[in-house]
């Protein structure tokens, strides 16, 4: 990393305001770093022309004293967000030439506030995966390596490209989408901060849907403060998404440094899953200790339905996905494989356009919604979801301000190591994160330390609905105690 690419967003903001460097210089430094880091495959599309033009505009606005809150900040956008006139693919063959004529609400708000687009980042196809290995554009290689080894590791997923890009210093911040852990898990693997806001906090309009009732956009950044800065721009009510909530967006950055004294932090006993790695357990206890030292009360809490969350999630999410992905039919846009008749065209297009994991989830989803199975699967999963939500509500009703858990059951694994024979092995990565999506709550993943192999491990904080501020306050306490983690550049 150069000086300019290793800045935090907060530092870069100061540098731009004091004219220590220009937005164009900042963009150029990143474009050069991106070129050098292509081996990571973090970007599926670099947009240097767009970046230069936007940076130029930013410099003009800075000069005119009209800088927005993110003026000149170069960011990467997960390829699930539709970007006007910039190819958007969900990293799927079925959309690999799709150029939207519209801009997603979340990205439009980033540009409104002055951010600069560097490019579109890699992700698991349609955000379905926990390792970024299902992307049509190939896997992302994590900038992290185990100590003394050069085995390529996964960055986590589905937002693997965004996480890798932030960690590798080829953007200052990035967007992700989180349906079952797709922001928090890769953030943990990459040693950075990732936030899954409350369901309804960010508009879903213009974001390619995976599972509508679970999908939520959120930021990746190298510090808790940076994540707070980004979320303020991304969040907000949108009349075009009726599930977005009409509540004012607080100044999240103001929550940084706020005392957490007297806050009640729940430690859910059900998250002590069998066979949990000792170092994860140690990290968790360490996290609790840091918060305690900052004046918080640590209490044990119970979330009794936790163990049903993952199976229920893998019914609800595929069910919604099977319907959401029906529009990719070769009729109006995207890939078309011609066939004998309409049915043959559908079959050829979808067989060729979707990868194995997406096909698997469409089939699971179709199955659980079909006549005769709906009650046994989908309806029951929805009931489980209600119970999970109630678990958290009971907890918060008892005065708990936030819940602390590990973000993942392990550190990053090697590319090709998991899920080859049994997809459930891969699904288990989401065991600590899916409950949060099922309950619609906000969650943050903050780096807590390194594993014995030198790989980042993350802690997750789960908050009350629309209380992201508490998560930022607590997250910063952990960040202050644990420090920040940067991979050694090997690329």
């Amino acid at each position, binding site marked *: 990393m150069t000086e300019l690419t290793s800045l935090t967003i907060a530092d870069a903001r100061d540098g731009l305001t004091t004219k220590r460097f220009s937005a164009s210089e900042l963009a150029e430094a990143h474009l050069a770093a991106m070129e050098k880091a292509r081996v990571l495959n973090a970007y599926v599309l670099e947009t240097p022309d767009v970046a230069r033009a936007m940076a130029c505009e930013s410099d003009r606005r800075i000069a005119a004293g009209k800088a927005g809150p993110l003026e000149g900040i170069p960011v990467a956008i997960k390829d699930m967000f539709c970007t006007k006139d910039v190819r958007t693919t969900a990293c799927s063959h079925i959309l690999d030439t799709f150029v*939207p004529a519209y801009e997603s609400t979340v990205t439009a708000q980033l540009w409104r506030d002055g951010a600069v687009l560097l490019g579109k980042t890699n992700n698991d196809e349609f955000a379905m995966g926990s390792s970024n290995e299902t992307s049509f554009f190939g896997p992302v290689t994590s900038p992290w390596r185990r100590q003394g080894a050069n085995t390529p590791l996964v960055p986590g997923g589905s937002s693997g490209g965004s996480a890798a890009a932030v960690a590798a210093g080829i953007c200052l911040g990035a967007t992700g989408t989180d349906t079952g852990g797709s922001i928090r898990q890769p953030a943990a693997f990459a040693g950075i901060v990732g936030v899954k806001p409350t369901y309804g906090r960010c508009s879903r309009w*213009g*974001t390619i849907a995976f599972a509508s009732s679970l999908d939520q956009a959120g930021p990746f950044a190298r510090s808790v403060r940076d994540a707070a800065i980004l979320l303020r721009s991304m969040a907000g009510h949108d*009349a075009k998404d009726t599930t977005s909530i009409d509540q004012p967006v607080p100044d999240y950055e103001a929550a940084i440094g706020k005392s957490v004294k007297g806050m009640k932090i729940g430690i859910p006993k059900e998250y002590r899953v069998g066979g949990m790695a000792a170092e994860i357990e140690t990290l968790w206890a360490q996290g609790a200790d840091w918060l305690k030292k900052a004046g918080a009360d640590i209490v044990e809490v119970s979330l009794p339905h936790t163990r049903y969350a993952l199976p229920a999630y893998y019914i609800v999410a595929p069910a919604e996905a*099977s*319907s959401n992905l*029906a529009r990719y039919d070769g009729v109006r846009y995207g890939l078309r494989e011609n066939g004998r008749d*309409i*049915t043959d065209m559908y079959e050829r297009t979808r067989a060729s356009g979707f990868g194995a994991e997406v096909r698997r989830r469409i089939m699971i989803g179709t199955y659980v919604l*079909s006549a005769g199975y709906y009650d046994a699967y989908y309806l029951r999963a929805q009931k489980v979801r209600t119970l999970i939500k109630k678990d958290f509500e009971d907890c918060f009703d008892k005065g708990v301000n936030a819940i602390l858990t590990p973000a993942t059951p392990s550190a990053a694994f090697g590319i090709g190591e998991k899920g080859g024979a049994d997809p459930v092995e891969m699904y288990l990565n989401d065991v600590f994160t899916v409950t949060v999506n099922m309950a619609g709550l906000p969650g943050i993943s903050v780096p807590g330390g390194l594993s014995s192999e030198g790989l980042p491990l993350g802690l997750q904080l789960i908050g009350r609905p629309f209380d992201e501020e508490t998560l930022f306050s607590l997250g910063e306490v952990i960040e202050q105690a644990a420090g920040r983690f940067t991979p050694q550049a090997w690329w």
Partner: protein
Amino acid sequence: MNAPARNTRLIKGADGDWEVVIGMEVHAQVTSKSKLFSGASTEFGGAPNSHVSLVDAAMPGMLPVINEECVKQAIRTGLGLNARINLKSVFDRKNYFYPDLPQGYQISQYKSPIVGEGEVIVDLPDGESVTIGIERVHLEQDAGKSLHDQHPSMSFVDLNRSGVALMEIVSKPDLRSPDDAKAYVSKLRSILRYLGTCDGNMEEGSLRADVNVSVRKPGAPLGTRCEIKNVNSIRFIGQAIEYEARRQIDILEDGGRIDQETRLFDPGKGETRSMRSKEEAHDYRYFPDPDLLPLEFDQAYVDALKAHLPELPDEKKTRFISGFGLTPYDAGVLVGERETADFFEAVAKGRDAKIAANWVINELAGRLNKEGRDIASSPVSADQLGTILDLIGEGTISGKIAKDLFEIVWAEGGDPRAIVESRGMKQVTDLGAIEKVVDEILAGNPDKVADAKSNPKAIGWFVGQVMKSSGGKANPQAVNDLLKAKLGL
């Protein structure tokens, strides 16, 4: 639904009578400027794909947003059908693949519709009234249109209708004959048009029906039904039921059984044919649409809409009978179309309502019918017709002359009073002039005079002669009086 069979509606079979049982699902396009979940126009007849938003084309990441006007229209419709309004309802996805269905699912309401049970009172041609139960009304999206005749090897898709709001109005199986069904749809159409919630235009597809038909022996349990899809005229509904009931009776009487299936009506051949069997039926995989929150409003919202409902056909009919002294038949005819009822009221205001009704129903409606026009485009206005009636009432013109005058106004327009004046159509009330004519005719027909003395009814012949010879302008009453006096009757 198990009311005793009305004997007059039974169908004769080879071994006894059969009863036909009909339930209908009427799809009515909601009158609204924009679509159910997008801002695109609902205007009919635009160039293909000219009324299509990103949502209607199901572009990636697009989300539906409910159009409140469509919700209000559905509530108004529910109120007009005396139905329960559900303060909470849910939109579901009905999943199936079809080129004119861009999302791969139709947003509809499955388990929790916006409107629950209600009823419609239907007047039958024989004067009887029956109450038909409404099962539910729900909101749903229309699909686009596949065009197969634009290219030798390709089909084209027009998405202008994609996403337009429909109300599916589901009846209970309370209908027992083709006449019942036709009268039900006519009444439904009338109510919707009064409410302004659907224009009822069947040619443009604004109103179409799926007809469920089964047959049974009177008193027996319900038979297996067949659904006839998308019948788009009231006449075809009658024909389709007629054919389908006979087809099912023939099968059953031959010892066969009815397969539950979906059928299509071919208006050219006047028959129904199989479209798909129960086994081929889609599994629609309904589930609540996660992009939309449940639709909720409070009773005050419903009450506010109720307070502004127009007078509906049933109320209007009652008022026409009690207030104007019309016969139930005349009142029924007049209230069928709100425009006709309004026209009648304008004509009847301050005049003899029965005469007004008679003129509107017989002269005006007859003439409009003959030329295939509707009352909104009537060349004779309510004012003009009212003036004609005034001229009759004042004795200025006779009823006969009035009909001529009506024709002139129809063809040329203008003020009827001025026309009567300028064309010398005024009735002759000068008794001397009439007497002169009467005397001439009596003198010229001594045999008829003798005849009339023994047969008073023969006076009619003399009246006719006098009227003829006066060019229709003699006052008929005066002619009658004079003749009676002169003939000594």
